[in-house]
């Protein structure tokens, strides 16, 4: 099941996430490239699906628990689990243990997995010690901190460090980069008016930054921002996942 060439630093399990699987496979391929460049062997468990976050946030705890057990079973054999999404990583790290507070056996398993689960750039910098991103990309890039990556996982410094290591990338400041983009999962569909007004503000800041591309670490937020940019007539500003940016072509 491993991707060639086998890395010498051991195996990591890649949790692709359902949105990446469905919408943007290049994010997963870029993640594999980055992890391999860091010397790891990447394993992609085939039966993986979704972390259960949509149901969890909608108040459907029962189905969230079912899916959490599935993820735990599939990934608990790895020393490290890497997720190219701050919010799905946050689901495993923060919310899986909460789901099983009344179930000691599963609580322990959830806690053990949570402790070994990382957002992609967090793993690359904090665990793998990567200081130089392998990809080539040229242009100015603004980085947006997606909420769960920032506030649940503590991802802030890591993507910036790697972006700054790329010789042809100029990172520009994005005003209110820690403010929510207004995605919020089903929120964006249930309350489109509010969500639209919030993402509009984000797009205005992106334009004001003058960046050629905006990079971020969560596909939901990417689709929200890209969709709004396109809707408002901006066909140019690239919306790129940080994995795609760092791995480059």
């Amino acid at each position, binding site marked *: 099941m491993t991707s*060639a060439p086998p890395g010498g630093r051991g195996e990591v399990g890649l949790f*692709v996430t*359902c949105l*990446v*699987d*469905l*919408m*943007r*496979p*290049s994010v*997963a*391929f870029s993640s594999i490239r980055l992890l391999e460049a860091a010397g790891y062997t990447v394993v*992609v468990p*085939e*039966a*993986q*699906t979704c972390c259960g976050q*949509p*149901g969890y*946030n*909608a*108040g*459907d*705890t029962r*189905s969230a628990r*079912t*899916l959490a057990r*599935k993820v735990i079973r599939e990934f608990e054999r790895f020393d490290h689990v890497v997720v190219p999404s701050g919010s799905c990583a946050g689901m495993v790290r923060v919310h899986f243990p909460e789901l099983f507070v009344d179930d000691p056996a599963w609580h322990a398993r959830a806690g053990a997995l949570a402790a070994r689960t990382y957002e992609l750039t967090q793993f690359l910098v904090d665990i793998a010690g990567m200081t130089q991103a392998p990809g080539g990309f040229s242009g100015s890039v603004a980085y947006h901190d997606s*909420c769960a990556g920032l*506030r649940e996982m503590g991802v802030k410094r890591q993507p910036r460090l790697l972006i700054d290591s790329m010789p042809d990338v100029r990172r520009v400041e994005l005003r*209110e980069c820690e*403010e*929510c983009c*207004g*995605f*919020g999962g*089903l*929120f*964006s*569909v*249930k*309350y*489109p*008016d*509010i*969500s*639209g*007004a*919030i*993402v509009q*503000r984000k797009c205005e800041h992106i334009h004001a930054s003058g960046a050629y591309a905006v990079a971020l670490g969560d596909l939901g937020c*990417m*689709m*929200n921002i*890209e*969709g*709004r940019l*396109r*809707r408002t007539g901006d*066909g140019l500003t690239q919306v790129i996942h940080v994995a795609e940016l760092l791995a480059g072509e």
Partner: protein
Amino acid sequence: MEIRSMHFVDRVRERLDDPELQRNLKRTRGRNAAARAASLGGLDDFDAVRARATEIRASVLRDLDLWLERFEREATARGATVLWAHDGDEACRLIIDIARRHDVRSVVKSKSMVSEEAGLNAALEAAGIRPVETDLGEYILQINDNEPPSHIIMPVIHKSREQVTELFARVHGTEPKTDIEALTREARERLRPAFLGADMGLSGGNFLVAETGSVAIVTNEGNGRLCTTMPRVHVALTGIEKVIPTLDDLATLLRILPRSATGQAISNYVSLLTGTKHDGDADGPAHMYFVLVDGGRADLVGSDFEPMLRCIRCGACMNHCPVYQTVGGHAYGWVYTGPMGSVLTPLFQGIGNARDLPQAATLCNQCGVVCPVSIPLPDLMRKLREKQVERGMRPWTERLAMRAWAWAAARPWAYSACARAAVRYLCWLAGGRASIPVMGLAPGWTSQRDFPAPAARTFRDMYARQRRGRAS
């Protein structure tokens, strides 16, 4: 106050379409958040103070009845009377009784959100007693036909100076004044006779100190001081959860409350009021009452929602909320707004009366991060969503979609078939374009933005193909 939260979606639309409100929201946006951030530097260890404040509030709630009894004992020993109100209506009745007993014709009020909960002004007026709001913001709202506040500590944050200029000129019949100082002076001139003539002062209470039976009031205008010392009768109206054990605890909470609220190291006034006027005292009321309201609070003790009772009403959560800052406080439809309102309103007014509030949040957790007493607001909103699901309050389309997704995601074969079909469908909709402008299945999404087109195949298909290629 009558609840209108069931009309949230319509109220939001109206407010998004109100250019003046949108301008005002933009102008004030981020201001309090920036002030808060700047002021935290004045604390040598914010996290430690926050942890201490959290523990003080949490420990009180563990023995709420005992602390309230202690408070009642100490306050009574100092000449005050402590009355308990089951709900807002009872609080109004008790206060009207007090007014009648002491022959009160007019009441000066400093800020009290519980008074808004109870609809006290309307009740007083119906009883022939004239209430006068003396907090400048509340005064503005009162003369604007009793408009409700849109923020718990800055009740008129939704209004521009120009709107106040116009309002004062119209109601006071004076020349329009644009300068804030002149406007404030004009309000003062109106309020002075009210202070001098009032028989009763009504205040809220930021904290009730159990060991001394005192109420602590945090204000910036000094009106609280006048309300509580000049009239013969002082009534402090607040919620039962506001009790804290000691003056030391008060000192800790005062280090974090004004900083979280307005970014001040300390508010302009902190009043600590204890008992009635005694011989030799320069001022103070001859009669002092506490009206402590349950209003749904006691039921939360020991429940999943107990952490919400730690709230010290600083407003930081709304000052940092992307939704609040986009739609303003009135959209929420009741006394409490923003994230804390989205939790409190359904708990106090019935989950069914405020279904949208806990749903209309992105769960970005800015609120949870800034809350000075560490209330996990997004978790509590999620718990309220759970309650809605348990009680069958969600629309059938949402329930069906959730169940179908959970069913498929638990079965890899079904999931991958669905994923493949979804990608094919979306690619067909995109028809070669980079994004989809209209999508029947999620009209909410495409009413505001395009839906980016997916790649031609799912990752799992591409990956399997690649690996087969390598193997052969």
